[in-house]
């Protein structure tokens, strides 16, 4: 059982997805999905402890040795991402039951859970596999189910948002395939470790830089790096609440994982940053993303949309850390992967609670919620403080490393922009807080606090925000190990 864990991590959810569809009853399919998510979470945790104890785990599918067969390869980074994705799924699913019953027609609920589990499967697969073409396949599995999930939103604009995402996502994925194909044409292999070995020999050709460029654009599209983020705000805004909470905290994170995998593991940091100068593109874009998208977020009138733009800005932080290409910088990026998943998860789930009771996420509609839904708004405040980076929350830990990484390189301006971003975050978080706490609730039937089945998962994530902000040794340790591994600096 244990030696098969790398593949079971992906296969069990893959089996659960059709099962969730076959059982047909909403409640049952929810149970199936819940079981799959918890299974994935425990498997991921056990993989992470395994990797931390004894190094990377390889798994040959069908007993075919790499590079002929497909290899699954779990190292510190992939185990980390597996934990993030499955952990968020395990929290979002208990939340989803009530929320989905409110937002989605009954006969579509089994389909919804099937798609959600498929989406999780795809994301887990991307993290687990050691084969670049497999990355593409899993990417499309997760994306296609994500398109479907987003289209299930109540507003008809969910449809156009999903369509927009589909077009841009497919273009991104196709770019990635082109990049993979060009790499294959030069090396004749698709295995990541094998590619990493063979690429340096052909790196001087014209094909490899082209492949590099295609991959860079494709991955940037998927991770919504400014200015390729256009699909994201609409998609997050109009998707059902549970979907937003799940996708916002996982999908872009996995895209960042792809970025790390392609440019550190496959191409190697030396080629990516010293020959191709990836940082010269990523860093300015990340900085612009942090500032511009935070400013845009301040002007949003819809809570979910506000958080969506904030997500684009936060992705800027991760990319910024990565573009520093130092152990500390990459560690900051990897750490922020986890930390941002926690904070955006809790924030979007708080929004889901608001949606459940109020039926709208407009900032205006949240007037007086500080009184009527105290626990929901308290969760929002804590998540928001984390986003700002107040000490003793996870956001602070990310910022601590990011600023340190910038200072280490003597990049003053960057440290300043990171901190400026925090202040802009303060502005948009406070916009919601002020309305919720200082505006009197509208007349008419009062709003009640969200039910416990929504509140408990939300607060689990909020507690995680605090817990990992107070005791960040483990998370920072894993992030540093992953960064050292990626940069080949030994652990």
């Amino acid at each position, binding site marked *: 059982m244990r030696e098969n864990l790398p593949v079971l991590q992906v296969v069990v959810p893959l089996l659960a997805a059709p099962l969730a569809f076959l059982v047909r009853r909403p409640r049952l399919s929810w149970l199936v999905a819940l079981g799959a998510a918890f299974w994935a979470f425990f498997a991921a945790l056990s993989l992470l402890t395994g990797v931390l104890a004894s190094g990377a785990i390889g798994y040959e599918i069908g007993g075919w040795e790499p590079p002929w067969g497909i290899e699954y390869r779990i190292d510190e980074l992939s185990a980390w991402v597996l934990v993030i994705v499955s952990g968020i799924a395990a929290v979002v699913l208990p939340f989803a039951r009530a929320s989905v019953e409110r937002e989605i027609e009954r006969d579509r609920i089994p389909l919804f859970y099937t798609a959600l589990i498929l989406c999780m499967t795809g994301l887990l697969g991307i993290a687990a596999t050691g084969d670049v073409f497999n990355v593409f396949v899993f990417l499309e599995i997760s994306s296609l189910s994500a398109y479907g999930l987003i289209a299930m939103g109540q507003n008809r604009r969910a449809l156009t948002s999903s369509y927009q995402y589909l077009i841009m996502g497919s273009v991104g994925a196709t770019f990635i395939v082109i990049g993979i194909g060009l790499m294959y044409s030069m090396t004749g292999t698709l295995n990541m470790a094998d590619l990493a070995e063979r690429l340096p020999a052909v790196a001087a050709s014209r094909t490899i830089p082209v492949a590099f460029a295609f991959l860079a654009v494709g991955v940037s599209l998927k991770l919504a790096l400014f200015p390729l983020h256009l699909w994201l705000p609409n998609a997050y805004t109009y998707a059902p609440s549970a979907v937003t909470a799940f996708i916002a905290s996982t999908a872009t994170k996995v895209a960042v994982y792809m970025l790390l995998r392609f440019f550190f593991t496959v191409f190697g940091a030396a080629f990516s940053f010293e020959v191709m100068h990836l940082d010269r593109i990523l860093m300015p874009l990340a900085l612009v993303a942090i500032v511009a998208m935070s400013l845009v977020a301040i002007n949003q009138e819809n809570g979910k949309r506000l958080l969506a733009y904030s997500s684009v800005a936060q992705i800027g932080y991760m990319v910024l850390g990565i573009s520093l290409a130092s152990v500390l910088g990459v560690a900051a990026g990897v750490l922020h992967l986890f930390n941002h998943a926690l904070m955006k998860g809790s924030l979007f789930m708080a929004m889901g609670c608001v949606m459940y009771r109020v039926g709208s996420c407009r900032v205006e509609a949240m007037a007086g919620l500080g009184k009527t839904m105290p626990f929901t708004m308290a969760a929002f405040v804590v998540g928001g*403080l984390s986003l*700002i*980076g*107040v*000490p*003793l929350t996870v956001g602070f*830990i990310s*910022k*601590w490393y990011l*600023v*340190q990484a910038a*200072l*280490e390189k003597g990049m003053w301006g960057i*440290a*300043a922009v990171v*901190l*400026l971003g*925090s*202040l802009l975050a*303060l502005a948009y978080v*406070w916009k919601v807080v*002020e309305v919720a706490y*200082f505006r009197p609730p509208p007349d008419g039937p009062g709003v009640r606090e969200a039910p416990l089945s929504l509140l408990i998962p939300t607060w689990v994530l909020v507690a995680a925000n605090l817990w990992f*902000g*107070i*005791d*960040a*040794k483990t998370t*920072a*340790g894993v992030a540093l190990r992953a960064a050292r591994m990626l940069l080949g600096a030994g652990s």
Partner: protein
Amino acid sequence: MAAVAIALPALGAFVVLALGKWPNAREAATLTTGVALFALVVSMIHPVEDGTGQGWTLLEVLPGVTLGLEVEPLGLVFALVASLLWPVTSLYAIGYMRGHHEENQTRFYFFFAIAISAAMGVAFSANLFTLFAFYEILTLCTFPLVTHHGTEEARKAGRVYLGILLTTSVGFQLLAIIWTWQIAGTVDFRPGGILAGTASKGVLSALLVLFVFGVGKAAVMPFHRWLPAAMVAPTPVSALLHAVAVVKAGVFTILKVAVYVFGLDLLGTLSSTPWLAWAAAATIILGSLVAFTKDNLKARLAYSTISQLSYIVLGALLANEAGIIGGGMHIAMHAFGKITLFFGAGAVLVAAHETDISRMHGLGRTMPITFGAFFVGALSIIGVPPAGGAWSKWFLGLGTLEAGQLGLLATLMVSSLLSLVYLLEVPVRAFFGRPPEDAHHPEGIHEAPLPSLIAIVFTALATLTLFVHPGLLHDLMTMVVSR
């Protein structure tokens, strides 16, 4: 023990929350916690005097970065002042809040207690990270107090308050802390400092600038606007938090950074130190001048606070023992003096519904105790015997002489003269002025509610006592510089 000192008010806060429906029990809880906290802090004096102060590491947040507590003399001074004045202010607040029919009183007492808990955390923190964490908590938990009334004006003030305090702390102070960590490899407070010899003088000078302006709570101009803005809060908040706990947390941080991060020897050699000292001096004078122009009593007191806070910043930047001793003592002296003044202002508001100085003529006759106490407080701020403020000004003056900065000494003198005028104007008008014709004070103005009156008299007497017995403070501060 330090952890208990932080936990106690936090615990008290939740008791307050639980007792929200029974106001008397709720207030009893606040007072009991306050007295217990003060007793606890007092019990720490002996170990510290014997030199057996301890450190505790609560937990390691990041490798090398810990949430740690430590009882040392400087922190003890701050803790003593804050914990003594908390129950006193609570007593005052009971009279004020009920007399003024304020809403959301439970929330008020809750956040009040949390703020004290955070102030204790600031006082006992063993490293910059812990201090920063509690510093930010203090900012955030005082926000609901500043915006207590929930009006448009209060919200605007709250925005300014939060905006400036968080901008400076996140933008400058955090940067300075991370930078310190980067070059020194530690953020612990150590006698003699941790930065000596770690980086070039230029870098350290820049770092000092970041620290001084990063501690927005010290209200060095141009980052002072939040303090007058915070005056929309109910008066007990202005009294305890914006004359004692919050602002003193700021100057306390600067003292701590000066003594335990830079070290006096290093501080004296940095090129930015004299410049910053002059910035503090400018704040002293400008604050006093602006105070002149304010007719609103609380606003005037706020600008006076800005001016007085820079005395302490200046003391720290003199980089000699007398300066630090004077600065540390001024934390206590100014606290008792200014809180008395605020209590007076609040009492006038509750009893006579007046906020403007120009309309306080003749009120002294109906409220003699209040204005008598106000007079004593004013003396302390001005720095003349027989009030405690004389001692701290004495040491600050010594410090400037020792540093050979006659210009700074002159600044202190001028500012004292200015405060003499703008503070004494109030009791003089009250006692000797004629009530204005159009004043339609409600019939039967009398003294403030009894609990408030007790508090006012207590702090006024304490101000006088500190003149006679400044020994403890002086001893503790001497320990700080000789450690």
